[in-house]
């Protein structure tokens, strides 16, 4: 084989190997998910028609719906306090929540009146809860209209 032919063969080999060289590129992708945190409260009719004359009562006062996309869940807080009227003796109440549709009993009211009730959820999702209060009017409660406000809030864990 002549040198010329040998050189051509080598040259051809170089061509075919470099022609298969890989060429690469990249496209960078990105996006942002913002926090979704929702609390909706639907007040129950009974909340405005509380029985204040027949001893201890446990009453559902609201349907709560909470939503978060935080994978660590959320914390619900609810205030408690007392039903009051001008110049009347206040009626303290406690609050608790139960799974939507379930009934609450006295053993589930673990937070004293006046303290903040809190509930932790885990994972992202929708959570339905019923908000209950428990109170005991005096035997001879002063007549009149008693009212109170429960403050609710949610925060991401």
């Amino acid at each position: 084989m002549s040198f010329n032919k040998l050189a051509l063969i080598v040259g051809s080999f170089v061509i075919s190997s470099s022609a298969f060289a890989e060429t690469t590129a990249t496209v960078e992708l990105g996006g942002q998910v913002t926090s979704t945190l929702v609390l909706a409260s639907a007040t129950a009719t009974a909340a405005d028609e509380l029985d204040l004359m027949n001893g201890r009562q446990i009453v559902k006062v609201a349907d709560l719906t909470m939503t978060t996309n935080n994978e660590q869940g959320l914390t619900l807080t609810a205030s408690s306090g007392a039903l009051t009227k001008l110049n009347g003796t206040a009626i303290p109440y406690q609050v608790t929540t139960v799974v939507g549709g379930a009934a609450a009993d006295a053993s589930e009211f673990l937070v004293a009146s006046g303290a903040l009730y809190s509930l932790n959820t885990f994972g992202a999702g929708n959570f339905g809860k019923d908000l209950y209060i428990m109170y005991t009017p005096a035997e001879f409660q002063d007549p009149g209209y008693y009212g109170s406000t429960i403050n609710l809030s949610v925060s991401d864990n």
Partner: protein
Amino acid sequence: MSPQARLRAGLVLALVMAAAGSALAASLEVQPTAATTALALNGDGTSTSRIVKIAELTIVASGVRGCRVWIAGGSLVRSGGAALPFEVVVAARGSPAPPATAFTVGEYRFATTAPITSVDVYIKYRPAALQGPGSYTASVAIDAVDN
């Protein structure tokens, strides 16, 4: 021509061919779209399947036989959160967005036959309704080899 002269001529020819050979690798031109780094990712309680054009890709083959091209699918990820997988497909430059059924899970492969081929690269993804909040990123690798 003397044997030495023939050897020199042969070596010069080989070097010229080698130089031409290295200049003949396929080339890629990628022009990302503005949407690429601002993908809509939901997380607001609704889940929407999305098809987004992420880049205009031009493949220049070094020979007449075209190229083989690979585009990697994958996932948009964020630290501490659930990944969001996406699928890839290409469509002819300027054509309408491809249907959802056109996409390929994993690596998308295609071959070109023309010296210059221009395509649009699309991804398809569907965030969870309550996709975790945060910043998601991914890198789509594109490889081309001459046929």
